[in-house]
């Protein structure tokens, strides 16, 4: 069981994530470590708990992109301190899967894709980002090199949905068992079904839940 002081510190860390207060984060993490809170506890009961709240508020339209980006920054600041410590103890390794992300050919938008990447990283996933305007070949190169558990495709434009369809088709032909998920402003669940993708997420928060669900099954 955790004592009162430890709980207080962990709550403070959650709060800093929710507020996007990256400036005070390093001090608070050091404070936690000095109080003998384990890095794994900081991650689970401080940082991830905070990110859960951020996710819920984003989903409900209470906060928006700027706040999420600030929270992600606070999260990243904390991780830069505790990640090396987590790595020293493989059993506490939180990494839950490797996701390769890219925006399809003809589309140069990366705001949505980056947000998905931030939220996935914030939930312990390893994220490989192959960038925007990514051809089928670029996706294949990435898959060959990184062997991700899930490949995520983004399209922001109504005019690049065909490229998304072609890319899903080509990847499914080459990698029958590779999980492919899609998202982006014009994309819907029915579109995802129609083009043969394994999953669709409406926003970055749902994308995290989707990846967790797909990897658990």
């Amino acid at each position: 069981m955790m004592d009162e002081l430890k709980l207080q510190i962990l709550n403070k860390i959650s709060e800093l994530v929710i507020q996007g207060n990256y400036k005070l984060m390093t001090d608070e993490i050091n404070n936690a470590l000095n109080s003998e809170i384990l890095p794994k506890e900081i991650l689970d009961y401080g940082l991830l708990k905070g990110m859960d709240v951020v996710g819920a508020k984003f989903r409900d339209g209470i906060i928006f992109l700027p706040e999420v980006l600030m929270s992600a920054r606070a999260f990243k600041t904390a991780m830069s301190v505790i990640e090396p410590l987590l790595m020293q103890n493989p059993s506490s390794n939180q990494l839950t899967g490797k996701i390769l992300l890219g925006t399809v050919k003809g589309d140069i938008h990366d705001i949505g894709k980056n947000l998905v990447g931030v939220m996935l990283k914030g939930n312990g996933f390893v994220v490989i980002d192959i960038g925007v305007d990514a051809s089928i070949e670029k996706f294949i190169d990435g898959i060959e090199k990184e062997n991700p558990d899930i490949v995520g495709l983004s399209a922001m434009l109504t005019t690049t949905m065909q490229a998304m369809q072609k890319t899903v088709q080509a990847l499914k032909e080459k990698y029958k068992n590779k999980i492919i998920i899609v998202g982006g402003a014009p994309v819907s669940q029915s579109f995802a079904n129609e083009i043969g993708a394994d999953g669709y997420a409406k926003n970055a928060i749902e994308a995290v839940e989707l990846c967790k669900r797909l990897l658990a099954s």
Partner: protein
Amino acid sequence: MDFLSKQKVWVFDGAMGTMIQNLVKDEFTCPEELNLTHPEIILKIHQEYIKAGSDIIQTNSFGANYLRLKRFGLESKIYEINSKAVEIARKASEGKIVAASIGPLGELIEPYGDISKEEAFNSFYEQAKCLDEVDFLNVETVQSLDEAEIIVKALRSKLSLPISVTVTFQKTPRGYFTMMGESIEDFVNRASNWDVQMIGTNCGEGFNQSLEIICEMRNLTNLPLIAKPNAGLPQYKDGKTTYSETPEFIQPLVEKFFNNCVKILGGCCGTTPEHIRTIKKIANKVNYDG
């Protein structure tokens, strides 16, 4: 916007991007490059909208700002691409009104992204240099009011033409907001400090939502209102992308738009000359019978 008083309501054109997609068979990446490589296709789209009844058509220059072209390696052609966009639209217009389409960067500006405010300003300033031959400047699909302000300032520092700004809002459980969390009221308030002559909304999830946004805006401003909604969200069936809101579907909504003080109505993604025909029919009633 002197021309606005000549008619009660005006018909804008429909989609450019999704029309290009249907007409261009080969792979292409940057739609604005077609002004140079396939001007006949852009001309044909404009002409179809004029034929369908558009009083105003819009240049194929949505993504032709410096930074966006740079992502396709086309920044050195920024003047050619924009000048040609205007030239093609003028040629098709048969004396009708020509608006310049100006879209956002598609990237985040500092402090949320890597683009500095100066870079953003310069990107639109460069684009503005070639747009002096249009009738007004239509800044559209804006999702950040900070960015909209930068765009308006950049255009204004180069051109004295009328400017319209149309924003894309998303519906949340708490109402309509931009991607950055700005409300319709925030937009109206901030726009009242900019030198813009018309405001409105474009893109989004369809005519119903767009109408709700316009109704909210109408209560907040006296500026003329402009709407260019999507034909719903795209669906994919049997290898083809289709849109749920047909010309028949939008007909009763078009009447409501005009009843709720929209001054200019057109369409965004998924709308076609057929949609414009429907809008024109009702606009004619409003202009000549009403």
